[in-house]
């Protein structure tokens, strides 16, 4: 297999990434459990990573890898902070529902 050839056409990877991304979007909008919303966000991150890696392979440029790596790192940080917020927000409530938190209301 020549190094610059992909196992599949690039369009497949793009489509796969898009599907995964929009599943994540739908999850964020529809679900009310903050934990599942966060996991949906992780899905979106991963969709983006998939694109990075696929294009890096297609163009044989490892900048994509670097950025995927950075995304993973930032995702880790984000998850940590977000989970901390969730813990603080819902520590004393008996149910976990983002719609209960409305302090951002203008």
């Amino acid at each position: 297999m020549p190094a610059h050839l992909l196992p599949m056409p690039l369009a497949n990877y793009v489509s796969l990434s898009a599907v995964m991304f929009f599943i994540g979007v739908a999850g964020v909008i529809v679900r009310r459990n903050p934990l599942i919303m966060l996991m949906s966000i992780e899905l979106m991150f991963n969709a983006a990573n998939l694109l990075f890696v696929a294009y890096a392979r297609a163009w044989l440029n490892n900048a994509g890898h670097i950025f995927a790596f950075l995304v993973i790192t930032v995702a880790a940080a984000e998850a940590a902070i977000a989970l901390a917020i969730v813990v603080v927000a819902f520590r004393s409530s008996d149910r976990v529902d983002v719609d209960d938190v409305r302090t951002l209301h203008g």
Partner: protein
Amino acid sequence: MSAIFWVPAIVLVASAVWTVTASKPVYSVVALLLNFVALAVLFLTLSAEFLAMIQLIVYSGAILVLFLFVIALLSSGVAPLSLGPNRLPRIVAPAAICVAVALGLVLAGVATSHGIPAPPRAAYANAGSAGMPGVFGSVGDFGKALFTTYLLPFEVTALILMVAVIGTIVLAGDETPYVASRRRAEQNRKAMREAIAREGD
């Protein structure tokens, strides 16, 4: 040969759907784990072995475990869909439609476009078979790029992680410095009030 793409791809989509639709967060975590593994496989097929490892270690090993901890901590993630009336009923349908339309648009765009850019002519110098040191996607290759060309972003990432750690402590710590100082101040005031009251007698 195409199975090496299609099998992980199907697992990927299916597990993503499961993640979003699972009735309990714990199921979502399991589904997400599956998703990550499938993605790691895809990374491998794209000769990004280092990233595949990272994907498994960081995501599956660290982040998902964190999720599990939080679920356990809150212990209220057991009844997610039986939480009473949805406060955004009107959002769900349009959102679904919008998402579907957008997805359709993207897919249509991908399908009809001949414009997915072709690989640039200046191909990678040391392209070879996967796994070999110094080849595209290898740990050495990746590390060299990370610590030379992309050193600054890497350092900034370190800073971000640092901030995240501190932020987490401040936010979720039981006895945050802010709370502690406030409590001490309150105690002092109280003591002073009592002292004044005593002197009044």
